[in-house]
Structures are given as C-alpha cells and as structure tokens.
C-alpha cells in the first residue's frame, strides 16, 4: 500500500516538487497544521511578514525580479482579506503568484465560524483561478495545477483555499503531471504567414515605432535579447510602457523613453504621427493611449500579445499575432535576416527623415526641470541616485505617485527584471514589501525602494521584516509632505484646493529608523546629497533615507485628459506651454 501523507505534508511535497525555495506568510489558526509541517522541509524558507498585504507584495517583488512564481501562505478570514490588494495588484500587472490560504474546517463552512470568510468568493475576480479543496484526494492535483495556471499563458495570481480538516486528513501524494492539459488555451499558435505579413509592413514603413510592454519582461530574458536584436535589425525607434522598462536599454539612442501620460515628448509625438505601430506585449492601457479616437490616427497597428483578450479590447489593430513574445520576435528576426540574404534590402534609409523629426522632438528635452541650489528637486535626487548606482546591478522598486513617475523618467534601466512597480492597480505601499521580496531573491544585490512619504507609511511595518532577515534594502523616500500626485492634480484640475492631500503630522523618519533597528539618513541640502546617497549605498544593512524635496514640484511632461498624444503640457522651462490658465485649464 502506498504511503499516505497529511494535507500539510502534501502541500510541502508539492512546493518541493515545484522547486519553491521561499514562501512569504503569516500564521494563524486555520493554517497551523501547515506551519507545523514547515520544520520538516529545510529546503523551503519561510519569510515572516508583518501584514499579509506585505506577504503578497513581497512575493510579487520576488516573482518579478526572479521570473519564478511567488508563494504566499496566509490564514483564513482576515489573513485572506488582507492579501486581496496584493492579489489584485498581481492580477493587473500579470505577476505569477500562488497563494495558499487556510480555511475553517469543512463542516463549519457557511456557519459564520470564527475567522471564516468566503475566500474563493472574495478572490474570484482578482485571481486567474482559485480552488477550495474540500477533498484531500484532490489536493496534490490542485496544487500542481495552480502552479501551471499561474505561470503559463499570461501569468497571474491563483489561490488555493484549504480547510483545516483537509490539512490533517491523509491521502496519497501525486507527482506533477508534465503532460499539459490546455483546455483549448494554447496561446502560441501564430503562423509564418502572419510573420511574413508583419515583415512586409516593416519594410514598407516610413514612420514606424515599436511600443513594448511588460509582456516582454514576462516572456523571460530571451525576449529582451530578441527585442534588442529586432530593434537593431530594423533601426526603428522604440518606446516602452511603465512595466516594460529595462527590456530595452534605457540609455540607448534608439530608445525614446517611456510613453503615455508622463512619457516623453518624443515618444508620444512619435506614437501620434507614426505610420506603423508595433505593440509588443503591451495592452493599450488608458494611461498610454490618451484620447482613444485620436490615438495614433494614421498608423497601421500590429499587436503581439500572449492574451487573445487583449487584442482589439481598446484599440482596433490591423494585424494581431497571438503568441509568446520570445517565439514571435525570434521568428520575425529570422525572417528579416532570411529576406535580407535574398535581396539585401534594408529600409533604414526609408526612415532617415523620421529620425530627423524625432531628433527635433528630442530637442524639447521634455524631462528637464529647473534645478535649485537651495532645496533638493525630486528629479535631481533620482538622477543622482541613478548616477551613483548605475554601475552596480541595481534593483529598483517604487511606491505609487509622483516619485514613481520621476523614477521611471530619470532612472535608466538596462536589464529586464530590475524594475518593480505597481502599474495597473497603482498600489501605494507596494514598494517596501516588494523590495523585501526582491532582496530575498537576490541577497547580494543592491535593492532600492524609491518611495514617497505617504505611500511608504502604508506598509512601513515591513521594515521589521527587513531587519529580522537582515535584508539591506534602501528605502529612498522623496519626502515632500504631500500626496504629491494628488496635490498636482488638485493644482491643475481643482483650482488648488488641496483637499486632504497634505500630511499634517508625519513621523520623524530618523527616529522611525532607529525604532526599527535600521539606519536613518536625512538629506535636505543639494550640496551634500551625493555624500548621503553614497553613505546609504555603502551601509551594509537596511536604510531609511529621508530626502526632503521641494514640495511644490510637479511631474511633467503630462498629457491632459481627453487629449491626444501630440498635445502635451511641458515643464516650466518651456515658456509657451508654461501657462495652464483660462481656457487651457478646462482642457486639462
């Protein structure tokens, strides 16, 4: 007779077979049998967080920086509801997470038992799929399927709800079944005809642009390699979404910077005026497109995506290729090279004029700002941070708001998986726990959370986690005492009525650092900013860096609402666009 295992043992056997090394979690009554089993599995290290949301974001940071699924373990009721924000965040940004939650014993489900909630009901709209395992005999199958669902196709979070009696019950363990049950969900069935059609469009284009997104990162490091080769072969300009940063080197001359609401002037104008738009692994998010009716009005549009439901969801495209970015781009590259060997025709000369136009837009220098000797400009702080860390293989996470946009604009990423930010859901409080997860996955690397003082307070408790595990994360707070992006919108859109966007009683971050047992550094003068940043980098341990910046700085350039890409508001250096008054204001 085969050996029988308890549900808790089966959970760990599955995790071992799925090669899980770290889980982020928080114990509680309904998961105690699983926690009891932890000691018997030395290959799996548990990271104890301070709040389940932190566990979720840490697992996201872990997943996005390593390419492996992040695993979360929480208890029933409040444990499960606390993780909902992180699951939703992962769902929006396509991050593979496997969340295991405890549940009250099966006979108590539906009786409003202590710490009971309808976990699968609550998480149904924010996971790719979820399971309530009522029968121990299904547990190993469900566990393995959960990993498969989370990591295949467009990645995303899944949840497995395991009642406490199932954790105690015994059954046989089944190894993962490598044979794939796709249920008609294979998303890599593009044809050579489609590739040929695409290559034909490439050769005819006079004003092309490549718009790449997080799908390139999700497809793995090979996708970034293929993308770089593709850009090199075609000579086309490339812009990237917030999530795609790092897939193509940020300091390369063919890179136009980020596009969208706070993207560069050249990237947005190129999107508007192009005659061929190639979307690689992005989803035409509303922060990218601006006004839909006037979005890139004269272009042929190509969309490469692994998720068929992303195609034609917002923007109608002329050619859709459903497939994994790595395989599609590699196929395109091969076809281009083959064609070139045939008649060695390149269209790089075709697009010389286009590049001239782009250079003109570039001259606007849309990311500029008026620097100051008296107080630290937030953009300046991010630029200095970049200059002082660019030679290290640095991982950057962010919270959400102005600082996030400044980080995206001024920190240049050269490799994929180095940039972790909450884009789709826009979760304030994401960056600190995400940095914890990144540091767990890359213990020897420099990990910085570029933060705002309002965001970071939402998940500040995870500093305690960082200290417990000796994680030398650097929390670089651009402290402007406001919810900066809220303040900016109130200034531009709501007649400077700064309703509830000023934080009256901020904590002293130096004392806070001391209280958590980590190092605190404060900077309020541009002249010693560099030294202070260097001190932070050199310190071997967690640091809270309180960088006091100009509270009135706004994030430019900006596409006002209801406006197309070619009508951006530029920064204060651009005199004609400086005034957002009267009639203009109504348009913002």
């Amino acid at each position, binding site marked *: 007779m085969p050996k029988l295992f308890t549900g808790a043992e089966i959970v760990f056997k599955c995790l071992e077979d799925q090669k899980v090394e770290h889980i982020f979690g928080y114990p509680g009554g309904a998961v105690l049998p699983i926690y009891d089993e932890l000691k018997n599995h030395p290959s799996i290290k548990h990271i104890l967080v301070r709040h389940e949301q932190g566990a979720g974001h840490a697992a996201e940071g872990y997943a996005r920086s390593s390419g492996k699924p992040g695993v979360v373990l929480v208890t029933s009721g409040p444990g499960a509801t606390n993780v909902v924000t992180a699951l939703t965040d992962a769902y929006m940004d396509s991050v593979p997470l496997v969340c295991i939650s405890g549940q009250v014993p099966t006979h108590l489900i539906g009786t409003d038992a202590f710490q009971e909630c309808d976990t699968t009901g609550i998480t149904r709209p924010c996971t790719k*799929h979820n399971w309530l395992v009522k029968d121990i005999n299904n547990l190993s199958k469900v566990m393995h399927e959960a990993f498969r669902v989370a990591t295949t196709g467009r990645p995303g979070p899944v949840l497995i709800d395991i009642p406490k009696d199932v954790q105690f019950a015994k059954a046989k363990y089944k190894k993962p079944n490598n044979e794939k049950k796709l249920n*008609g969900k294979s998303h890599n069935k593009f044809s050579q005809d489609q590739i040929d059609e695409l290559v034909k469009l490439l050769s005819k284009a006079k004003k092309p642009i490549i718009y790449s997104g997080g799908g390139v990162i999700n497809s793995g490091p090979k996708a970034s390699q293929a993308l770089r080769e593709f850009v090199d072969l075609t000579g086309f300009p490339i812009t990237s979404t917030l999530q795609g940063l790092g897939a193509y080197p940020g300091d390369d001359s063919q890179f136009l910077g980020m596009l969208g609401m706070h993207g560069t002037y050249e990237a947005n104008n190129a999107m508007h005026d192009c005659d061929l738009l190639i979307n690689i692994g992005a989803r035409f998010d509303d922060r990218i*497109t601006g006004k*839909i009716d006037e979005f890139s009005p004269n272009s042929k549009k190509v969309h490469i995506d692994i998720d068929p*439901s992303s195609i*034609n969801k917002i923007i109608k495209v002329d050619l859709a290729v459903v497939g994994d970015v790595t395989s599609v781009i590699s196929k395109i590259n091969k076809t281009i090279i083959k064609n070139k060997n045939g008649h060695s025709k390149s269209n790089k000369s075709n697009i010389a004029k286009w590049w001239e136009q782009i250079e003109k837009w570039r001259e606007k220098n849309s990311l500029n700002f008026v620097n100051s000797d008296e107080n630290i400009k937030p953009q300046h702080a991010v630029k200095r941070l970049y200059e002082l860390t660019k030679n290290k293989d640095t991982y950057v996470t962010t919270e959400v708001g102005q600082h996030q946009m400044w980080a995206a604009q001024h920190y240049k990423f050269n490799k994929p998986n180095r940039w972790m930010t909450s884009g789709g859901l826009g979760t304030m409080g994401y960056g600190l726990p995400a940095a914890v997860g990144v540091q767990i996955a890359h213990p020897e690397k420099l990990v910085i959370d570029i933060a705002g003082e309002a965001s970071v307070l939402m998940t500040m408790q995870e500093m305690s986690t960082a200290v417990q595990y000796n994680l030398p994360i650097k929390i670089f707070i651009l402290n402007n005492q406001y919810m900066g992006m809220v303040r900016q919108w109130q200034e531009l859109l709501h007649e400077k009525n700064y309703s509830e966007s000023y934080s009256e009683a901020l904590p002293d971050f130096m004392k806070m650092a001391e209280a958590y047992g980590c190092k605190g550094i404060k900077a309020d003068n541009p002249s010693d900013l560099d030294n202070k940043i260097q001190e932070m980098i050199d310190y071997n341990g967690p640091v809270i860096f309180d960088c006091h910046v100009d509270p009135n700085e706004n994030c430019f350039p900006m596409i006002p609402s*209801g406006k197309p890409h070619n009508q951006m508001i530029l920064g204060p250096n651009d005199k004609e666009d400086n005034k957002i008054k009267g009639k203009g204001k109504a*348009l*913002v």
Partner: protein
Amino acid sequence: MPKSKSAYSVPTKKQKPDTYIFVVWVDNEAGVLARVVGLFSGRGYNIESLAVAEVDAAKNISRITIVTTGTPQVIDQIRLQLTKLVPVHKVAEFKRDDKGVIFKEMALFKVVGKRNKIQKCLNACKNFNPIILDETRTSAVIQITALRREIDKMNKKLKPLGLISTSRTGAVAMTRGAKIFN
C-alpha cells in the same frame, strides 16, 4: 468638447448594440456558474437570460446558454474573456437572427378561471406546442415552447384571460442540420 476635470478619458461614441446568444461548455464543478456570471457583472456586460444544466454526466460537462446585448467589440471581449476561464472548454456565439440556429425557450403559464377562458388561452397558444400539465375545474398549467419575444407577447396576451403566474427557462440554442457549434 466636454469639460473634464478627470485624468480618465471621456467616453467616446458607441457602436450599436445587438443581441447575441452565447453557448459555453464548462466543467460542472462548484463555483463555475459564479465565475461565468461574475465575469459578466464584473466587466459590466449584461445578461438577458441564462440557462444551465449538465449535458454530459460522464465527462462532467455543463452547457450554459446566455442571451446578452453588446456592441461587436463587447461581444468579442465576452467570448475572449469566457475562453480564458479555466473550467471553460468551448465558447460559441451567434446573433439572435441567425437563421442557422434554433433558439427556444420554455414557459409555464398558470391560468385561473372558467373553462372557456382556459380554452381561449390554449387557442392563443396553439402555435407554440401547448401542453396541459395540470388541470382542475378552475385552473390549468400550460407549457409552451417558443421564442423569447413570442413568450413576452403571450405573457401580455394571457393576462386578461386569467394568467396569474409565469415561469420561464431562458433560451437554449442548437444549430440546424448536421453541423454542431465550432
């Protein structure tokens, strides 16, 4: 152009919505209907009627028929989003006026009144295969099968003749001829 204080875009002109019927084959497991219905409510799609039952006990497959309205773009999204759900095997959709598809709904009418009124009801229903399922001296339960709008019409027509209760199933659909969906 409308004034906007929002960073979200203003809604743009909409295409004309049409009525479509979706047929979805799913694993018959706990929560599957909630997933399908939740997708509709969560993304703001509309459900006019819904019919669901297991059709293959051996393979554990249920068949869900959903009548919905939407612009062609929304209908596309509904199909693609449904296809993404893990327990969904197959999705088919067709327009309500598609001649190649039979589209039926069953209704039960309870009529209370004198014999002659009940007889009038039966006569009114005569094109829709009326069957009397239960009869007393003062009442009858009449079953009909018809199109959705025909049942709507009968529902109105029978009211003055003593109709006191209506129960209907929601539409089910099947292709004509030898071919099957997809």
